C-alpha cells in the first residue's frame, strides 16, 4: 500500500468516478451524494498522507508497470506537485459538498465528472513524462467540457463550443510540439529530456527551440495568458459557479506545466536554450495583468469580476515563473495556493448572493437586499480583503513576498508600478461591487423575492474556502517554509534528475 501511495491520487478518483456510474448509485440521489463526498474526502486524505511522506522522505518516484525511467512512464511526487494535488483534492471535496445542496441535479453525471476532472488534474501534476502530460490534459479537458455544459442554457452552449474548439486546436499544437521534441531528443521523459537538451548541436538546437516555444503556446492557452486568454471570462462566467470554482485549479495546471518545463527542461543547465522562454513569459504576463485589471473595472456581474481576477492571478504567477529564482518560485507557490482558494470562494459567494437577489442575480446593480446579509457580507469582506491583498490576510503576505522576490532593479522598474496600480484597481472594483450589492437597495421592491437561505452543505463548503485566507495567515510560517522547500527542490536540477532516473533510490 505504502509504495503505491504516489499512485493513489490518480487511482482513487478514477475508481470513484466508475463506482458512481454503476447502477446502485446511479439512480439514488442521496446515496450518490454521500458516496461522492466521502470518496472525495478519502482522496484528499490520501493526498495529505502523500504530502507528509514526501516532506519526510524526499521525492517519490513511481514507475508504472515497474518499467524504469526513461523507458517507462514514471510518476514523480515532489513537494510542489503534492501540494497542488492536495489543493485540487480539497477543491474537489468542497465542490462535491457544495453541489450536493441541489446543483448536481440540474444535469446528469455531475459527481462522476468531478472525479474524472480531479483524476486528470492530479495526473497532470504528478506525471514525469511529457506525452503522459498530454494524455492527462485530455482527460481533464473532456471532463471539463461536459461539466461546462452541466445545467446550461443557450449562452452556455456558445461558450462551450468556443472553449472546445480552442482546446482541440491547442491539443493539436501540443502533439506537434511533442513530435518535434521527440524527434530531436529521442525521449519524452522530462528528466531525460532535460539532460539531452544540453547536448544538442547544430540545427537540432533550433528544432528544439521551436518545440519548446510551441509548448509555451499550449500552456499559455491552458493558463489563459495574453493573447490566448479571451476564452476565459465567458467560459467561467457561463459555467455553473460551483463548476467555475472547480475550474479555478485548471489555469494553474498551465502555470505548473510552465514551471516544470521552463525550469527543468529549458532551465539553467540547458546550454544554448537555457531560459529561452523567459522574455516571452515576462512581457505577456505583464500585459495579462494590465488586461485583467481593465476587465475587473469593466465587469458587470460578480462572476465576470471573479473570472477577471483569475486572469490577474495567472499573470502574476507567470511573471514570477519568468523571474526564475528560488525566491520568486517560492512566492509563486504561496500565491498560487492563496489565489486558487480565494477565487473559488468568490465564485461560490457570487452564486449564493445571486440566489438571494431574485432576477438581479449577481449583477453589480442596486437590487433587493440579500436575506442573510451578515453571513454573506462577512464572507465577502474576508474574501475581498484577501483577494485585494490588504493586511492582515494571506493576500498581503503573498504580495509582500512577490514584491520582495522581484526586488532586482531589472524587474522592479516595470513590475512594481504595474502591480501596485493593479492592486489599487482591484480594490476599487471589489469595493464597488461589495458596496453596491450589500448597501444599495431598490426603494420599491417590484417583485417578491423568494426567501432562500443558504443550505448547510453550501455553508460548510463556503466556510472551508473562506477560512483558507485567515488560516494561511496564521500558519504562514510553516507554509512559507514548505513553499521555500518546494521551490528549492524545483530548482535543484542535478538532484532531481538523479533521483528520477535512478527510480527514486
Amino acid at each position, binding site marked *: 500500500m505504502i509504495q503505491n501511495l504516489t499512485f493513489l491520487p490518480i487511482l482513487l478518483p478514477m475508481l470513484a468516478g466508475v463506482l458512481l456510474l454503476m447502477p446502485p448509485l446511479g439512480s439514488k440521489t442521496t446515496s450518490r451524494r454521500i458516496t461522492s463526498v466521502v470518496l472525495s474526502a478519502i482522496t484528499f486524505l490520501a493526498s495529505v498522507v502523500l504530502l507528509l511522506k514526501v516532506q519526510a522522505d524526499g521525492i517519490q518516484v513511481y514507475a508504472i508497470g515497474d518499467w524504469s525511467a526513461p523507458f517507462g512512464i514514471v510518476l514523480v511526487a515532489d513537494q510542489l506537485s503534492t501540494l497542488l494535488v492536495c489543493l485540487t483534492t480539497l477543491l474537489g471535496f468542497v465542490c462535491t459538498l457544495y453541489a450536493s445542496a441541489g446543483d448536481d441535479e440540474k444535469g446528469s453525471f455531475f459527481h462522476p465528472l468531478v472525479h474524472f476532472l480531479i483524476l486528470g488534474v492530479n495526473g497532470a501534476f504528478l506525471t514525469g513524462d511529457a506525452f503522459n502530460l498530454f494524455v492527462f490534459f485530455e482527460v481533464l479537458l473532456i471532463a471539463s467540457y461536459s461539466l461546462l455544459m452541466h445545467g446550461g442554457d443557450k449562452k452556455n452552449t456558445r461558450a462551450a*463550443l468556443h472553449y472546445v474548439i480552442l482546446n482541440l486546436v491547442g491539443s493539436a499544437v501540443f502533439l506537434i510540439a511533442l513530435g518535434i521534441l521527440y524527434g530531436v531528443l529521442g525521449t519524452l521523459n522530462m528528466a531525460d529530456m532535460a539532460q539531452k537538451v544540453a547536448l544538442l548541436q547544430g540545427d537540432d538546437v533550433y528544432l528544439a527551440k521551436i518545440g519548446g516555444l510551441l509548448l509555451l503556446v499550449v500552456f499559455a492557452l491552458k493558463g489563459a495568458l495574453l493573447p490566448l486568454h479571451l476564452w476565459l471570462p465567458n467560459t467561467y462566467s457561463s459555467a455553473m459557479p460551483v463548476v467555475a470554482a472547480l475550474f479555478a485549479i485548471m489555469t494553474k495546471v498551465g502555470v505548473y506545466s510552465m514551471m516544470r518545463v521552463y525550469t527543468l527542461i529549458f532551465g539553467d543547465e540547458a546550454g544554448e536554450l537555457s531560459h529561452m522562454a523567459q522574455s516571452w513569459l515576462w512581457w505577456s504576463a505583464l500585459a495579462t495583468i494590465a488586461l485583467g485589471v481593465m476587465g475587473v473595472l469593466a465587469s458587470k456581474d460578480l462572476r465576470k469580476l471573479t473570472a477577471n481576477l483569475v486572469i490577474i492571478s495567472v499573470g502574476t504567477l507567470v511573471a514570477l515563473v519568468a523571474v526564475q529564482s528560488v525566491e520568486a518560485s517560492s512566492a509563486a507557490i504561496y500565491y498560487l495556493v492563496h489565489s486558487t482558494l480565494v477565487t473559488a470562494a468568490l465564485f461560490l459567494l457570487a452564486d449564493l448572493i445571486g440566489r438571494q437577489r431574485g432576477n438581479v442575480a449577481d449583477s453589480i446593480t442596486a437590487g433587493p437586499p440579500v436575506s442573510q446579509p451578515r453571513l454573506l457580507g462577512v464572507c465577502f469582506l474576508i474574501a475581498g480583503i484577501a483577494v485585494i491583498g490588504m493586511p492582515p490576510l494571506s493576500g498581503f503576505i503573498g504580495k509582500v513576498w512577490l514584491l520582495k522576490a522581484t526586488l532586482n532593479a531589472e524587474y522592479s522598474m516595470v513590475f512594481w508600478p504595474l502591480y501596485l496600480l493593479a492592486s489599487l484597481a482591484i480594490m476599487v472594483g471589489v469595493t464597488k461591487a461589495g458596496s453596491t450589492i450589500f448597501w444599495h437597495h431598490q426603494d420599491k421592491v417590484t417583485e417578491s423575492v423568494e426567501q432562500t437561505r443558504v443550505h448547510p452543505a453550501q455553508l460548510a463548503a463556503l466556510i472551508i474556502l473562506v477560512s483558507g485566507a485567515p488560516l494561511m495567515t496564521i500558519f504562514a510560517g510553516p507554509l512559507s517554509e514548505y513553499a521555500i522547500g518546494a521551490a528549492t527542490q524545483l530548482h535543484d536540477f542535478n538532484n532531481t534528475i538523479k533521483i528520477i532516473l535512478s527510480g527514486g533510490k
Partner: protein
Amino acid sequence: MELLYASCVGLLVSCGVFLILRARTFTVVLGLTMLSYAVNLFLFSSGRLSLNQAAVLGYSSEYADPLPQALVLTAIVIGFAMTAFVVILAIRGRSDLGSDHVDGELPDKNKKVKV
C-alpha cells in the same frame, strides 16, 4: 519520400487551418479533423522515415522506432473521441442557437454591437 511526406503534412495543416478559420461549425469540425490527420502523420515521422525495417526489437539489427507508433495510436484514439464530442456539440449548438454560425448568430452589419 521525405519531400512527398512533408508536403502532405503541410497541405493538410494549411487546409485544416483554413477550414478552422471559417465561420460555420461544420467546416470547423472538418478543419479539426484534417489538422488531427496532419498531426498523426507528423508524430509518425518523428521516429524518422524508413523502409523495410523490422517493427519489433531483436528480429533484425535495423529496426524502426516503435515509440512514435504507440504515440500515434494514442493520439488517434483521443482525437477520435474529441471529434465525436465536437460533432455532438455542434449539433446541439445548431438546435440551441438556431444557427450553425460559430457565434450562434449571423453578424448583422447594421446592428450596433451590444456588450
